[in-house]
């Protein structure tokens, strides 16, 4: 009887080898590109459009097959790191610019500078300057093509504001005006804003009302933070001011969205991904809302952050073909179709200028928001951000808001801890 078992084991092993062999021989004749995208883009209408892009591209390149796979944010990174380690990278893939340095470290991204320079000037001019800068850490290096992105928006619940006696026809022009409105909302018995000290990106969004890209981010030459202590002290003071006015939930919590929908929260500083939820609520339960720019300290200055997603190309034997595909999907025509379908902002400025695209309100506001916003973790692709960094910023902001430090002390402490963190 044990011989039967041994037979079965041998057969199974042989079968496995045969199947593995079949798979690898099939791949040798055609080229198959693996294409990884964000999970949103691999569902519904977005997936349909991506598949059309694929069809158009493969029609011009016979013998090429492209497999599209969607993944959530962290999973993209984990999968790409694992793929790099085992030599099984996807050929074309998306991720956020902020994990760029890590991916370069594991050699997941090819330097496509030469291929880029070989493209015609009118193609290269299509891209938003700031987004492109994010992909070009040093001269002669280009590690990605910027794709989608966002600028932070300020969603306003008009019902709540009107109940608090605020004129909603003009958005608040400065921080002080905005703070006044928040206080009025609180007096009317409602929450003004989420607790912005809970996550790194919302702290950055408020910092941007006083600071800008140069006074945020990293100095990789001497491994220090670029955060300005005076500006940070001012910003920490803002968090202290907002303590009695906030809902206790973060801008990403479901509860925050629910408060907004049920007319208990006035302002929501967040990216455009909540818009589908609010649109739905506007249709079904009468939510009245709009989105405007986050006001900065002076009139004309805006707060909020911007962050771009990128398309990367893996080094290897399919690099040229992969770059051609990446160039195709990031080109103006495709990006305009993409923007129109999803009503979302992306990094192709020429596509954004397309009249049909710029007529969409969310896109128009997003373009302005992104221009005035602060890069959330620049400069990219130079050094990998250690995870002590974000935690220190969050902890010190919360501690100061709790009253454990004065804003000046908190800022000083934060910066010295950040420098220690980066020095390691």
């Amino acid at each position: 009887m044990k011989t039967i078992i041994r037979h079965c084991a041998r057969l199974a092993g042989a079968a496995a080898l045969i199947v593995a062999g079949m798979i690898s021989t099939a791949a040798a004749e055609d080229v198959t590109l693996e294409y990884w995208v964000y999970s949103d883009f691999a569902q519904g209408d977005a997936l349909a459009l991506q598949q059309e892009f694929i069809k158009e591209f493969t029609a011009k390149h016979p013998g090429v097959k492209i497999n599209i796979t969607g993944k959530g944010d962290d999973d993209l990174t984990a999968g790409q790191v694992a793929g790099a380690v085992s030599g099984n990278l996807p050929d074309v893939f998306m991720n956020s610019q902020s994990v760029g340095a890590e991916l370069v470290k594991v050699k997941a991204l090819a330097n496509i500078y030469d291929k880029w320079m070989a493209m015609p000037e009118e193609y290269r001019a299509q891209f938003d300057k700031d987004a492109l800068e994010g992909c070009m850490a040093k001269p002669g290096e280009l590690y990605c093509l910027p794709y989608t992105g966002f600028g932070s928006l300020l969603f306003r619940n008009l019902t709540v504001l009107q109940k608090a006696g605020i004129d909603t026809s003009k958005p608040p022009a400065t921080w002080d005006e905005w703070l006044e409105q928040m206080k009025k909302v609180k007096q009317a018995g409602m929450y003004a804003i989420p607790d912005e000290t809970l996550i790194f990106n919302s702290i950055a969004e408020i910092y941007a009302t006083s600071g800008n890209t140069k006074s945020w981010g990293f100095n990789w030459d001497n491994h220090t933070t670029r955060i300005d202590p005076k500006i940070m002290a001012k910003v920490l003071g803002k968090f202290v001011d907002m303590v009695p006015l906030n809902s206790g939930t973060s801008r990403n919590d479901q509860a925050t969205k629910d408060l907004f929908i049920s007319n208990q929260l006035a302002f929501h500083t967040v990216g455009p991904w909540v818009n589908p939820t609010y649109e739905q609520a506007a249709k079904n339960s009468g939510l009245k809302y709009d989105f405007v720019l986050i006001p900065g300290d002076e009139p004309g200055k805006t707060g909020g952050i911007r962050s771009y997603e990128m398309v990367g190309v893996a080094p290897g034997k399919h690099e040229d073909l992969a770059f051609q595909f990446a160039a195709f999907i990031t080109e103006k025509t495709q990006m305009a179709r993409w923007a129109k379908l999803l009503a979302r902002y992306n990094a192709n400025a020429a596509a954004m200028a397309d009249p049909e695209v710029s007529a969409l309100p969310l896109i128009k506001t997003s373009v302005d928001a992104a221009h005035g916003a602060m890069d959330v973790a620049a400069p990219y692709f130079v050094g990998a951000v250690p995870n002590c960094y974000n935690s220190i910023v969050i902890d010190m902001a919360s501690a100061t808001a709790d009253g454990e430090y004065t804003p000046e002390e908190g800022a000083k402490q934060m910066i010295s801890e950040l420098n220690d963190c980066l020095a390691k």
Partner: protein
Amino acid sequence: MSQNGAGPVSVWKILKWVVALLVAAIAIFPIWWMINVVFALPGEPVSLNPRLWPTSLSAGIANIHMIFAQTEFLRAYGISVAYALLTIAGVLVFGSLAAFEFSLFEFPGRRVLFGFVLLSLMVPSAVTIIPAYLLTSQLGWLNTMQGLVVPGIASAFGLFMLVQFMRAIPKDMIEAARLDGANHFQIYWHVALPLSRNAVVTLAILTFIQTWGNYMWPLIVGSNAEMYTVSQVVGLFNSPLSHHTVDTVMTANLLAAIPPLVFFLIFQRKIIQGIAMSGTKG
């Protein structure tokens, strides 16, 4: 201690019922909440003032229909079921063969080998996952069913549990079978396996639940969309910055939770007995 409470209704009895029902409510409530989020009109706040009952059957059905239409959920069901069943088959066969030996017989090296297996329970899986992944990749098994299944077959927990149970098999039955002329494998097949049926069924169910919920391993081994397990398809919805509305997210999660729930309800009698009996041998 099942004493017949046939006496008059005492304070204790009322208290007992109140506590029991309260705890049951705490245990079940989150599941009930999730169902109500799925079967609610879109655009309603869901995390505040939890719905105590579903408000819209049709919205829920529309959600479910959309998920099936827009994602490859059915295919993921198929892959997860295949993954689970193949793993169960492997774990039961390989594990019971080995457990039979470790529990009932002496041979050189028995203690040492068994000790190694037990030790592996104490090493966090995060340590072994990357080297195991690299080996799987070198075998060419990425994005294949065998890559998902084979590395999980030698389950230390399964071996441990079956050993606990098989220890209770009376040695004289083994002897009797041997005297009847049965060879080694026949003793395993005709004596030990039938007597361990409860443990085997239990292990099958536990392996199902564990395989169904497995996230990290399928993520890196089954990274292409055609090999997505249910946990990965659901993971597409759970990203906090996705553009999905919460009722869609909850629908995906509900659809993922149904098979283990159904499996459990069907086999719950077997589970309860099985887990229990392996425990008493500790």
